[in-house]
């Protein structure tokens, strides 16, 4: 198949770019090596829309962060993903930390962060009463927020697909040849995609993709972040995202109220070699909890539901690298998209669109571009009367599959219809299995619905694609 544009990587960057380009008369393909979109770095992060005070505007990542932040309200209206501007605070516990907070404040003012304020002890305890009373002051940025990162990516991709973008899953790029003015891209299992322009949004693997296309040589350094998810009943659930005063490379371990009502502590920051090393460790668990308890004393290991780790695809420079390749023809690099990549993503879409102009790509707006996608009703958000109405229309909404997160059969069916046919894909779309029982009661029901809706047999249902099978054989043989 011949396309105008091929985007490699369906994480938040690739998805944002795909949706942006869906506004134009272009034939675009989004290529992903995993079984679903958002299955890499974009699924395992803190889910924060950053405020824009952490880095100087001299960095590209900071400029895109500030621009991206402003775009979320409009996107939410169009796409309906869970997002809330709950605000961000930085809590200071010593005079020295307070000095650092003042620097962050000055940087925020310079960057144009809307509403940023320095807080006295009384003020900060007023807006966040869960804080350790030893706090002596801090920073408040009301424009920061929280988001479900995978739902954001899912909705971007859904919108792009609705507007004509195509998606190839399980397509691992192995080879690329430039011939007669187009790129011939082959997968490890022999599929071929042809495209005039290629955008490298391959996250952790952006360095290998760049090498495959004979473009710039650079190295992505995976920086691991472990996070712990706490029960929605935790007494520590805060009003705001709470940052410590940063020290060193990372912004430090945060305390995050998730937009769906659970809470999270993390991430750590540890450089690793292996790009698939998403293991968690007891040392980091202890470190995170010891650290977090100094900020909110009611945080407890007893409330842990689950843990996970994500890998930030960092470059040596610490900045994003988004530019037209100087070496490979019609090739755009979108690399080093670590934090605040999620916040910056909508702006990255616009930025890459403008880079295509530099390459003389013809960008003509579609007349019938539709920014909206159909919203799936979520039983946990409906009143009893709204539920009654919808169950009357479709009884599957009355069949509650996931008791912890109140997910109905109909929502799971919608997830599968939208192409999320692995257990993790269904989980990220619906939240089934994400609550306190972690799938103990709903997994077998979800498997059956996936089998029924897709026609997959029991041994084809996976946790997240490839060899992550859930059921090995049938009792008494397959007959």
């Amino acid at each position: 198949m011949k396309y105008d544009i091929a985007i490699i990587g369906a994480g938040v960057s690739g998805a944002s770019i795909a949706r942006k380009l869906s506004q134009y008369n272009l034939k675009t393909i989004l290529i992903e090596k995993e079984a679903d979109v958002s299955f890499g770095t974009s699924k395992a992060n803190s889910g924060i829309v950053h405020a824009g005070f952490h880095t100087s505007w001299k960095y590209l990542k900071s400029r895109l962060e500030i621009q991206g932040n402003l775009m979320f309200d409009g996107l939410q209206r169009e796409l309906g993903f869970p997002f809330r501007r709950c605000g961000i605070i930085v809590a200071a516990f010593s005079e020295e930390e307070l000095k650092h907070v003042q620097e962050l404040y000055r940087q925020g003012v310079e960057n144009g962060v809307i509403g940023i304020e320095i807080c006295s002890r009384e003020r900060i305890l007023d807006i966040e009463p869960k804080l350790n009373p030893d706090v002596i002051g801090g920073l408040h940025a009301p424009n920061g927020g929280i988001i479900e990162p995978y739902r954001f990516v899912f909705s971007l991709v859904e919108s792009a697909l609705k507007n004509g973008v195509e998606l190839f899953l399980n397509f691992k790029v192995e080879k690329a040849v430039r011939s007669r003015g187009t790129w011939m891209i082959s997968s490890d299992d022999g599929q071929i995609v042809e495209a005039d322009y290629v955008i490298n949004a391959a996250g952790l693997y952006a360095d290998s993709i760049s090498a495959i296309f004979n473009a710039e040589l650079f190295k992505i350094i995976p920086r691991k972040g472990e996070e712990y998810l706490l029960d929605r009943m935790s007494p520590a659930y805060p009003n705001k995202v709470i940052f410590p005063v940063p020290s060193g490379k990372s912004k430090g371990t945060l305390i995050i109220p998730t937009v769906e009502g659970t809470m999270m502590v993390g991430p750590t920051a540890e450089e690793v070699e292996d790009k698939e090393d998403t293991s968690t460790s007891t040392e980091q668990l202890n470190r995170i909890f010891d650290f977090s308890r100094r900020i909110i004393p009611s945080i407890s290991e007893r409330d842990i539901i689950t843990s996970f780790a994500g890998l930030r695809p960092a470059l040596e420079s610490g900045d994003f690298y988004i530019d037209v390749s100087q070496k490979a023809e019609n090739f755009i690099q979108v690399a080093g998209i670590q934090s605040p990549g999620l916040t910056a993503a909508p702006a990255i879409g616009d930025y890459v669109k403008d880079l295509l102009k530099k390459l003389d790509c013809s960008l003509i707006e579609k007349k019938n571009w539709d920014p909206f996608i159909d919203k799936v009703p979520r039983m946990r958000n409906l009143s009893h009367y709204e539920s009654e109405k919808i169950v009357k229309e479709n009884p599957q909404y009355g069949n509650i599959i996931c008791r912890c997160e109140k997910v109905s059969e109909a929502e799971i069916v919608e997830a599968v219809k939208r192409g999320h046919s692995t257990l993790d894909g269904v989980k990220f779309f619906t939240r089934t299995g994400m609550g306190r029982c972690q799938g103990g009661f709903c997994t077998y029901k979800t498997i059956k619905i996936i089998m029924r809706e897709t026609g997959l047999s029991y041994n084809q249902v996976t946790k997240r694609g490839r060899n992550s099978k859930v059921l090995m054989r049938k009792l008494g043989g397959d007959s």
Partner: protein
Amino acid sequence: MKEYIFDCVVIGGGAAGMAAALEVEKSGFDTAIVEREEHLGGILLQCIHNGFGLHEFKEELTGPEYAERFAERVQASSVKVFLESTVMELSESGEAAGMHELHCYSSVYGVFLLKARSVILSMGCRERNRGNIGIPGSRPSGIMTAGLAQRLVNIDGYIPGEQIVIIGSGDIGLIMARRMTWAGCKVHAVIEIQPYPSGITRNIVQCLEDFDIPLYLSHVVSEIRGKDRIESIRVTPLKNGIQDEENSFEIKCDTLLLSVGLVPENELSRKAGIELSPQINGPLVDSFLMTNKKGIFACGNVLHVHDLVDYVSRESRSAGSNVVKYLNSTLTGVQNKVKAGANVRYVVPQKFNFQGDNQFYMRSMIVKNGAKVEVRAGNIIIKTVNHNHVQPSEMISISIKKEELEKISGIPDQQLEISII
């Protein structure tokens, strides 16, 4: 919205719910059971092994058989059963004092409202999972709770894996060790963090020893390895409570089953404002098994996790008969406190009364041969019962007759304290 009015609504149609509902219905009260699954019976339906009913029926039954006996009685009774229906909210009626409202969702009945003067909580319990015990390592496929595996094998007929390791020596884990072996899988080990098994002795013998499955006491799984599917685990012995890394070893496996404890399922209760015990996670109840909300009772594993279903049935009948008295306005009596004393982790119920016999259930914190359970009120010993052996995994029950409390009945504000010595 469709509305139905009952004298009593029972949430959950497992062993506890069925026994309680039958007891209430027997006295002529309009009773309903709301059950989320397609059948009555709850978790018993996946427990196809035997060992149920020795107290209740004086014979050995399988789980489904035990459930069937009660389900048949329910079907023969006037108890209205709403199957495939989930209670989404339990609240007090805004219109009539003493009435409770239950909003239920169902693909069969739609969204409907039940109103009742009394409610019995019998939602059972859930399994603790990997996150609750913080096992480090990667997050591949092939890790699940033993109960989920039991469901998949015994009801759906699927084998989740071939090379099995089980964490935790809880009863479900032990039963599953045997079950997976019978299904042709290799069970390599059962790993237990405590120096003693968490399951009952009968299961250790019949499920592990009979099949030569090694049980590693005082060992932990210190790492899970594998990318797509679990490939191996690292097991580390504990020496004085500290991981002895030097002596850790690896076991290859493709499946890891977790049997690391059960927790009463009380999200609904908590949202309804019912006070819970921080130790047990079940509702705090008085001697009539009534919660702090008037007219709401609790029984079975939602109250505290039992070892034997026979005890669940007995406790639930008692809850049911108290509901009858409540509905007849004859449930009266001063409630005095019961305290867990030395070596006792908890006592249920947390109150007693002088009007009738009192039945207490408790768990020991220690392993001991030749132990005594002692009930005292201040300096007065009410009762002492000898036990050949006590351990945390075996629930202890003790009943105190009305007459036995007579010697302290004159003293106001008298407290009982139950200890194991």
